[in-house]
């Protein structure tokens, strides 16, 4: 690990100012992604700004609170395990609790934070290996995955420069729930819909979010969605637990008199970002809540998917995962 300067910030303003003044700075909260990558010399920050102590002066950073509109406001420093076990999350947004508990391990969930989870980086083998070319890690060096081993790679949102999969579970559930990311800097605060927070690789795989220099994630808002009580996260992976998704589906489904009144669909493990499927949602509304309709929606969700040598199986796997998730929720009382 390269040496770095370390400081602990006591306010979001101070943290943002320190980060804005040093292009090599990174915020650190749980550290579970960042330190892993620093040990590999994939991340080489010159300065770490520890934001854990912010919660002392700014308790909203670790709080889950009701908003005026009936939604929830989640602080960026809420740990994954606390969010997953929060009774209000379990009752109103089960898909989010399930997604969190399907990710990582008990130890890591005690460390990882909401803000950090949104910044989690890909598990692409070539990105993590500094002996290999990687446009994301070193722009312009090429992509070793496109012609290489790409079983875990993305089929949606890829480009000729990068096919790295977005690895998270929590962001997939949040994408389905119309979540809004709140970010703060010395210039003030702004909000970004989660589906616009991450960007597809295009010509610049090194750029993964719309965050600007010095901007710090301070929280995520979940708007009121009473029918999201009937929601579910289904994750398929190589082993039963503690593995990244090959395919996952986050769904919320509102059925009245046998017909779909409202639905939210997002996919994980298959996209270069948390993959919301508006086309599949539009197609399902008004349809009978049947396996056939779910399958038709799944076909739409994976329309345009581009397979590579080893990952074509993900297209069918993602469809079946989505159908299973929708069927499960349709069967809920």
């Amino acid at each position, binding site marked *: 690990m390269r*040496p770095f*300067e*370390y400081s602990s910030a006591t306010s979001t303003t101070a943290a943002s100012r320190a980060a804005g003044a040093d292009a090599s700075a990174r915020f650190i909260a749980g550290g579970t992604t960042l330190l892993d990558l620093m040990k590999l010399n994939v991340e080489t920050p010159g300065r770490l700004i520890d934001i854990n102590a912010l919660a002392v002066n700014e308790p909203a950073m670790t709080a889950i609170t009701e908003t005026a509109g009936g939604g929830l406001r989640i602080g960026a420093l809420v740990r994954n395990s606390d969010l997953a076990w929060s009774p209000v999350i379990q009752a109103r947004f089960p898909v989010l609790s399930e997604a969190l508990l399907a990710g990582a*391990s008990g130890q890591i969930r005690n460390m990882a934070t909401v803000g950090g989870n949104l910044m989690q980086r890909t598990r692409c083998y070539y990105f993590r290996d500094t002996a290999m070319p990687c446009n994301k890690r070193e722009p312009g060096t090429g992509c070793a995955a496109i012609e290489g081993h790409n079983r875990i790679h993305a089929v949606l949102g890829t480009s000729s420069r990068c096919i790295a999969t977005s690895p998270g579970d929590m962001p997939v559930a949040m994408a389905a729930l119309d979540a809004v990311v709140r970010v703060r800097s010395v210039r003030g605060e702004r909000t970004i819909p989660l589906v616009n927070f991450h960007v597809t690789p295009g010509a610049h795989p090194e750029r993964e979010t719309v965050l600007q220099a010095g901007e710090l994630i301070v929280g995520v808002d979940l708007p009121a969605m009473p029918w999201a009580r009937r929601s579910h996260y289904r994750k398929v992976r190589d082993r039963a637990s503690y593995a990244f998704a090959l395919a996952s589906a986050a769904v919320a489904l509102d059925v009245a008199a046998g017909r779909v009144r409202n639905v939210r669909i997002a996919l994980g493990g298959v996209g270069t970002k948390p993959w919301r499927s508006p086309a599949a949602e539009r197609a399902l509304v008004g349809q009978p809540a049947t396996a056939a309709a779910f399958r038709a929606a799944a076909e739409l969700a994976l329309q345009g998917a581009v397979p590579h040598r080893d990952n074509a199986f993900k297209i069918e796997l993602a469809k079946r995962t989505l159908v299973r998730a929708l069927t499960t929720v349709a069967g809920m009382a």
Partner: protein
Amino acid sequence: MLATVSRVDVGMPAPDFVLSDAEGQSRSLSDLRGQPVVLAFLPPGWDPVQAEQLSHFNALVAQVPGVDAELLGISMDGHWCRLDFGGDELRVPVLADRDPSGDVRARYGITEPQAILLVDADGIVRWRHAGAMNATPRAEALVAALTALAPPSPEVADLSPEAIERNRGVAPCMQEAAGAPFTIMTTRREFVTSALAAALALAVVPLAATAEPLADRLAARSPGGAVAPVPVSLRVNGERLSLLLEPRVTLLDALREYAGLTGTKKGCDHGQCGACTVHVNGRRQLSCLTLAVMHEGHDITTIEGLAQGETLAPMQAAFIEHDGFQCGYCTAGQIMSATALLHEPCGPADDDVRECMSGNICRCGAYPGIVAAIQDVRRRA
């Protein structure tokens, strides 16, 4: 089967023993209870009264922030090591065992050619250094240990002529008899004792290897420029631990390499195996994926902190009873994870336990025993 000889480590009570010196005078460790004692396991022929010892000691002291003291002489008198601070003389008991196959060594589980242990006034091992004859002790680790044992405070630092005059004649062994207040002298005495322990450890390697200043050593180790070590204060297993660490030192490395708590294991060092699991403020975390400097003031519990004296914690006993391990490398992490699990909303079934324990990998495949041990403890709770 468990190994029958276990190592006496930091935080553990020092087993009692009797040593005789050249004049046939005997001294047991328990006779010296109430004051810090240096236990030195040294190669035959080692001489504590070498001239370079003074340089070692003074060079070391110079690196401890806030302490200004110059040692002018060291001499041995039976089991007592006399330290001359220019008018003030302190005596520290040093029990030196130079028998490489001695049974005191065996009782302390010392397999290395040389080892230095510092036992505190309550008979608890507070610092342990062991290594090969020619292994260079890490100066920064020694300084960190010194800082941990005797935090520099005005009392500690005060070896001014006035303070020395004030304390004149109050040698450690006499102080107790006089019933004088312990605060000042105990603190300074502990500092001197621990400093001596470090000096003894340094004395068994050539002077040249340890003469360069600490900052130069750190700079030499840091490609791309040094970052100064920062003081970090943790509470580890209930004891305050003050260390001087580079920011990039992980909590795992701080525990293993700086505090000498090697019960916590380094497996993958990337958060994939769970061997390094410890409790931070009561919750299980991976010590390899967090920096020590991020845990200022936090309560850390390691595997060394679970047992109550000689009594194993229920989870430790259950792992033995149910054969929850084979090679043992993952076991500390498994037990720390399992212990924390008891306070988490984990479902009742075996499969729930498997899911909750999925972050702890066992290469030997001792999973059936691990699940059985956890379920056994949960049933009894």
